[in-house]
């Protein structure tokens, strides 16, 4: 009889009876293999040498490929993604009353935007419109009456040495963006409504500084949801 117990550790579970048999068979096979392995121990030393060489070659190939793929994202896609981000943010801005934004996060390797839609119609409309911009980089989940959209875009942070947080603070003061801002422990903290914050991100894209900073945008949790006040941390 199978046992469905959600107190167990998550992941792959044993279910049907025959699988246990299979597992026992596998255990026996492992046992047989070990016995044979002991018998053949001496003749295997040369094989081990070739396996190690093969393994080293594979590791080097994977490292090279991974470096090249990062480079490809870096050189070809960044400008496209900047443009896509602008368009996605416009959609978020236009649909503010129909969604609850959880997070916008621009980090080392990834840009994340997570929000819940208030109804199915908004969910499918936005899923459609956003996937036109960024293809499969948006995912939608309908779970227990929550309509959730997650956006994940490859991202790079490349700090320009001549433009730090203090310069950004001064620049924003000059631009009079209409939000509260201050520097605290080398981080720029901004508190405002979502439209002004989206405007701020679009300004960073326009002046080509969007990849210069890590940026995290979250709703201020201590306030009621209806106030829709967000906090931005730039570092």
């Amino acid at each position: 009889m199978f046992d469905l117990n959600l107190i167990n550790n998550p992941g792959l579970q044993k279910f049907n009876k025959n699988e246990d048999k299979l597992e026992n068979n596998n255990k026996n096979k492992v046992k047989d293999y070990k016995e044979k392995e002991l018998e053949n121990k001496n003749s295997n030393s040369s094989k081990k040498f070739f396996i190690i060489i093969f393994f080293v070659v594979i590791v080097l190939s994977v490292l090279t490929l991974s470096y090249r793929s990062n480079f490809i994202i870096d050189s070809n896609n960044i400008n496209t993604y900047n443009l896509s981000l602008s368009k996605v943010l416009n959609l978020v801005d236009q649909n503010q009353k129909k969604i609850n934004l959880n997070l916008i996060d621009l980090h080392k390797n990834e840009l994340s935007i997570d929000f819940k839609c208030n109804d199915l119609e908004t969910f499918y409309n936005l899923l459609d419109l956003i996937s036109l911009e960024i293809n499969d980089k948006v995912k939608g989940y309908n779970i227990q009456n929550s309509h959730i959209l997650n956006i994940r875009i490859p991202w790079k942070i490349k700090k320009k040495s001549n433009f730090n947080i203090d310069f950004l603070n001064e620049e924003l003061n000059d631009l009079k963006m209409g939000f509260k801002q201050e520097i605290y422990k080398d981080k720029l903290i901004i508190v405002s409504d979502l439209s002004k914050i989206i405007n701020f991100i679009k300004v960073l894209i326009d002046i080509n500084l969007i990849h210069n900073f890590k940026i995290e945008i979250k709703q201020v949790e201590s306030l009621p949801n209806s106030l829709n006040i967000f906090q931005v941390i730039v570092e």
Partner: protein
Amino acid sequence: MLSISQASNCLSCVEWLPSESGPSVVQYKKIGFQDKSFIDFLENVLNKLDNKIHESTNKNLTLSLDSNNVSISSFKYDKSISIKEKIDWYESIFLGPYVLKNYDIYYYPLEPISSEVLVIYIDKQIKKNILKSCEKHGFRLKHLSIDIFSANSSLNMYNVPNDNYILWKIGKNKKHSILFFKDKNFSNYIDFNLFKNIEILQSIGTEEYTEELISIIEHIVSYQKIKSLDYDFYNQIYVYQTKNNYDLLKKISMINSNKITVMDIGSKFLNKNLKNKISYNLLSFNENGNSLEGIDV
């Protein structure tokens, strides 16, 4: 031992003690339940039970959730690819970070019958709230299951089913669920609405069996005698319900008493004085079956 099963807005609670002649029930009660977040759900339960009893017994708890509190899904895989590899792919490409972050995910391969994996997600916050409430009231959560799967444990305890059997749950709002076991292996899970016709909501397992199962159900709900040809496919149908109107169940059970068994946990577990007389209002207690896992009854 305290056992609770949730069916929609109702908790069926049983408190029992182990004894030489099997589990001995000391109290059972149905309690209204509204807060689906499960924040301190035990407070309400313990206030309504006779606390003189449970304070003196061991503080183990089993819980069976309504399937609406979890998400059930599945995927098929190629046997030439290792299942762990396929799960990695499914998690990274299909589920994505939101589900991985917020849900505990369980994978149950339906081998050897089909190359499909039943996937069950439970919200980590719900699980956390359940465990927190247990901790607050000094209970140890021993088992957490889902409605019809927990009823399958009752079935195995009291009915000793044959190799091929169908377990049928008649739920509220014309929603039904079916589990099918082939050679004692779990094979199919089907959710359907029963209006004039059957409308399948979800089907997991081999399509061939699904078609056969739906055809059997269609035949039964038209109140015709069961076709003897079907006996090769299954040996017995076990049926129970969690809704309050018993008309459909009574009609079904009258079609062919040899092949359709109403799961009667009332006289077997809750109140042995009922002497095999089916007490329909106790049928929802079938979903307390996970409490009896591993117990000799």
